């Protein structure tokens, strides 16, 4: 695959500096994200951490999907020169789905259950581009073909409950890619899928991201999977970045939390009883 060789890393697509997301609750303020900083070119960046580490909230803040009661602040949150924090909500809406797209975890919940798959894809396209009905349909079918759905005309007219999880996730990828985004945020895109289907979906995602030269943020709790898929990995713990490293240098990870995440999964051919368990030290969160 040509992905690694012709990757354009020159321009910075996204800049995040000191991002904070806080939620007011009955028992006080909860800081979900506490000063996260990174920058992204046209590359694949993985964000890894456990539940509650703030990885999904980071992705949602970039996308502009933070719940209204929460507060987002940052020294800089910039997408291609546009300051995402001060931009008007209508401009933000125009960006969302058009230049920045997001794939969610479970197609069962993130697709509209009462709308055919085809109509949902066409809706995305016609929200962002002026195209006629016939052309929109043509492009949706082409996109379904691009995510390796064998019989796109049939799938176009199906409702989400009529397709399998893997097929639903492909439809979701098609919907997100149809407007040709420059930045894609994938939040646990394969966690709800079977192991074999997982690989198919990742292959499709990998190929399309490379072909179109997109920037990708891949959010997952599976460090091993992320490191095999991404160029760079950001490891988060308790709302903070504890380590940033190249995926190829994962073996030389220094932070005990990163090493713990790497070690705690059972692997075929490596007998370890009991499995090493993550120690969580309070000073990591400080």
């Amino acid at each position, binding site marked *: 695959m040509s992905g690694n060789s012709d990757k354009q890393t020159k321009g910075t697509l996204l800049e995040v500096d000191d991002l904070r997301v806080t939620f007011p609750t009955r028992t006080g303020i909860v800081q979900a994200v506490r000063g996260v900083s990174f920058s992204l070119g046209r590359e694949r960046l993985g964000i890894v951490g*456990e539940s509650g580490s703030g990885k999904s909230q980071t992705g949602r803040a970039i996308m502009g999907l933070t719940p209204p009661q929460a507060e987002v602040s940052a020294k800089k949150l910039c997408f291609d020169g546009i300051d995402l924090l001060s931009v008007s909500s209508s401009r933000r809406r125009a960006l969302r789905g058009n230049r920045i797209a997001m794939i969610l975890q479970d197609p069962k919940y993130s697709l509209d259950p009462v709308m055919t798959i085809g109509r949902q894809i066409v809706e995305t396209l016609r929200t962002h581009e002026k195209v006629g009905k016939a052309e929109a349909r043509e492009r949706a079918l082409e996109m379904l073909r691009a995510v390796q759905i064998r019989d796109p005309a049939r799938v176009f007219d199906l409702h989400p409950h009529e397709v399998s999880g893997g097929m639903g996730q492909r439809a979701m990828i098609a919907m997100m890619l149809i407007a040709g985004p420059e930045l894609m945020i994938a939040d646990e895109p394969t966690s709800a899928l079977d*192991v074999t289907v997982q*690989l198919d979906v990742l292959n499709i995602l990998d190929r399309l991201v490379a072909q179109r030269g997109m920037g990708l943020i891949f959010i997952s*709790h599976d*460090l091993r*999977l992320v490191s095999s898929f991404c160029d760079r990995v950001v490891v988060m713990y308790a709302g903070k970045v504890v380590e940033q490293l190249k995926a190829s240098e994962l073996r030389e990870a220094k932070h005990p939390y990163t090493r713990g995440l790497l070690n705690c999964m*059972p*692997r*075929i051919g490596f007998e370890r009883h009991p499995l090493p368990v993550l120690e969580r030290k309070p000073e990591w969160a400080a």
Partner: protein
Amino acid sequence: MTAAIAIEGLEVVFDRFRALKGVNLEVREGESYGLVGESGSGKSTLLKAITGLAPVAAGTIAVNGRTLGKTRDKAFFRGVQMVFQDPYGSLHPRQTVDRLLQEPLAIHGIQDGEKRIERALDEVGLGKGFRFRYAHQLSGGQRQRVAIARALILEPSILLLDEPTSALDASVQAEVLNLLEEVRRRRKLTFLMVSHDLAIITHMCERLMVMQNGEAVETLTASQLIGHRVSEDYTRNLLRASEGFVRA
């Protein structure tokens, strides 16, 4: 020695759909046995058929040498308990942990409840402080520990585990897998464990059966699988998939 679970020619039919097509299985006493396959391969249906939760159309199931009929009696449930996949769905949202653990004791008329609840909570690594909490006050890993405590409280000899860690984070998964291994060693339990993750099955089980479309593809020992000594293409595909993403 009699087998802990012996299944012959098991057929499960939902309306016209054959979910299991003549499956044979033998799990020895004290063994940990794994079932692997993709969604819809019938691995969970097999567990449900044992507990009487799936419509058995043909075949026999024997547990600890006793052939099971259409209904299961109380003695069966004392001996066989199950832990489900989703810790968010398997605990009653309006009952405290204490109440959840009381229920099986009340059903079976067991007297020394107090002692058993304390022991069970202690065994799964939850202290007394958790006893009067509700499920929504617990994390996913803690909930799964409660579900395991509930299964253990009747002191069964067989545990049926349906993807016990697939809803959990990788780091919490390690803790729950360690806990399961520990209680098995201490109580000399027999495990029948379902997972779609080959690495987990080889870690936890001595033997395993690969399933697809309601049929057994092949039966292997864990060491055969680790050494890639498998004869079916389907198993080879699963093995390849479990090694993670490789850029083509």
